[in-house]
């Protein structure tokens, strides 16, 4: 059987290497998609973090001193308007991000609170960001004003801020852990581990039945189990390469040190050797599961078209946990035991931890064990299907 496995494996690899669909689906597309994602995220990140002035429609004020101060401030790009309704119209038209009407200068010694009017569009990210910046500036001014009042009364001005917050950022900042792309990577790796193989698996078994080469193969001395295993191993290579292409794509873009992506890799690209080994172990187990599953489905199908229909439906089962892994942080379920034993989801969540440099033993174990158990199960199913003449010969 060993001999047959090797022969089938090498022949399938050779054929797949000559298939444009494999090259496009498993190599070109993942690189293209990840490059697109990284560049897009780079653009978004730059636009959020760069020192962009607040785009502001400010209602004319009688306070000449304040007017001159604001006009001179570089953090504002001010459009002066006559009324708040004009400011609101500009915000609505997206000509500016926020509209602001400051209160008139208060009379000396007045204890009455003053009201500033702020107009924004919460459905526009830049409007919401600029409104937050305006609020922060006003809050800072309020503290200064209150401090001055307290000081004039002979009270310590520090009491204007009775409780101060001392914030410590404990997030991982080393290597890839400091990159914004780290949350997206496991999702893409898991998806391409499946979709890379999906581009060819229909042809791998159902295609052989359809073309008549399956019967040629079955007449040779090779055992059917060896045929199934050889095909699964060959598909594993394609799935693995496809998934790794995503990772290599990210590293390549990081190494290029493009201006547009500089915010995405603030602390470089380093990842420890131990974590690379853990990630590869998880990935190999996952592609073994995916390959065995896809070969079993392709073996069951009568022809390529039928196999593609089954695989299309099956892809949603992969997509669902992969997508959920992106939002699991908001659900509080990230550390739940069931996540560690939910196939695909455990790999996506576990891989994120590993890439960040903080692997979770439970997730890693759950991912490897569940993937290998399923790989073995679907390998047995695929072998059984290859033995069933009504399945392997039907077209």
């Amino acid at each position, binding site marked *: 059987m060993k*001999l*047959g496995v090797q*022969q089938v494996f090498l*022949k399938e690899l*050779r*054929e797949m290497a*000559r*298939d444009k669909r494999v090259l496009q689906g498993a190599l070109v597309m993942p690189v293209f998609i990840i490059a697109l994602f990284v560049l897009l995220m780079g653009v978004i990140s730059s636009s959020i973090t760069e020192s962009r002035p607040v785009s502001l429609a400010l209602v004319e004020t009688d306070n000449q001193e304040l007017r001159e101060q604001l006009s001179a401030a570089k953090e504002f790009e001010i459009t002066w308007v006559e009324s708040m309704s004009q400011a609101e119209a500009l915000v609505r038209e997206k000509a500016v991000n926020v509209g602001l009407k400051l209160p008139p200068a208060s009379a000396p010694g007045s204890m009455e609170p003053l009201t500033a009017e702020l107009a924004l569009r919460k459905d526009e990210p830049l409007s919401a960001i600029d409104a937050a910046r305006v609020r922060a500036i006003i809050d800072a001014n309020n503290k200064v004003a209150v401090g001055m009042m307290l000081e004039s009364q002979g009270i310590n001005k520090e009491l204007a801020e009775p409780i101060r917050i001392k914030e410590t950022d404990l997030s991982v900042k080393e290597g890839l852990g400091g990159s914004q792309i780290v949350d997206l990577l496991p999702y893409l790796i898991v998806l391409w581990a499946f979709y890379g193989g999906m581009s060819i698996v229909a042809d791998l078994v159902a295609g052989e039945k359809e*073309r*008549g*080469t399956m*019967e*040629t*193969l*079955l*007449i*040779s*001395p*090779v*055992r059917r189990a060896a045929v199934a295993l050889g095909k699964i191993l060959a598909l594993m290579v394609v799935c693995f390469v496809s998934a790794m292409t995503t990772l290599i794509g990210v590293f390549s873009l990081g190494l290029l040190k493009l201006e547009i992506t500089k915010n995405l890799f603030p602390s470089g690209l380093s990842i420890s050797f131990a974590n690379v080994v853990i990630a590869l172990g998880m990935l190999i187990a996952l592609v073994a599961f995916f390959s065995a599953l896809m070969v079993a489905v392709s073996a069951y199908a009568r022809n390529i078209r039928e196999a593609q229909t089954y695989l299309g439906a099956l892809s949603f089962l992969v997509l669902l946990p992969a997508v959920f892994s992106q939002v699991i942080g908001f659900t509080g379920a990230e550390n739940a035991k069931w996540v560690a034993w939910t196939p695909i989801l455990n790999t996506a969540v576990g891989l994120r931890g590993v890439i960040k440099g903080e692997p979770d033993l439970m997730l890693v174990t759950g991912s490897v064990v569940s993937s290998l158990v399923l790989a073995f199960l679907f390998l047995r199913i695929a072998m059984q299907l290859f033995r069933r*003449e*009504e399945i392997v*010969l039907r077209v």
Partner: protein
Amino acid sequence: MRLRMVETENVVKIFRDPKRGDIRAVDGVTFRAHPGKIHGLLGVNGAGKTTLMRILSTVIRPTEGTAKVCGFDVVNQGPEVRNSIGFLSTTTALYGRLTGREMLEYFAGLYGFSGVELKQRVDAAIARTNAEAFADQLCDKLSTGQKQRISIGRATIHDPQVLFFDEPTAGLDILAAQTIIGFIEQMRDLGKTVLLSTHIMSEVERLCEEITIIHHGRIMGEGTIDQLKSQTGQETLEKAFLSIVAPEGVAL
């Protein structure tokens, strides 16, 4: 006693169809084929010839009965049977993204050859089928006749003692068909046991020393061409065949 390279004993194959119920594709077939002879399995489409060939080549299992090839049981000694046979039909295709040489190397490997012996086997198969000019082209780019030559090389790469030909000339033009027929004769002359399934009378008359007529999965007649003519009282093999499978005449 003559050597029996292929022998079946009351072989039955039932296909279970959820809509049509049980279908007896082969129904109690017993026959023998001998070395240096071409044994014809003659029957109309759907008679059960291909099913019988598939049983003998271990692709499917008989529901009842026994079958042996070169003394090996088709159920319990599958790999040994497959090592002893070569199989060729118009439906046994080639891998389009392999060259003819790679196709032959692949199958030589599956038959257990490696290294120098594998190379010698492949070179010999290419020379034997006059495929030198196109052996390094992808199979997808080959003509039907060229593909058939590579298929012949594939079927004989391991020098089998028994060769099965399942309607090998169906759909081929006259030149490609002549290549196949010439090859079948060559195999017989080398002392191989040849089982030829066909419904083309001219091929049977030219090639077959022994004939088994199958209809609805059952053996309806056996013997040489002359014996079949004599048994039915007909002048030609075609008339003899028709009188056996459609004694009440063919409806128009």
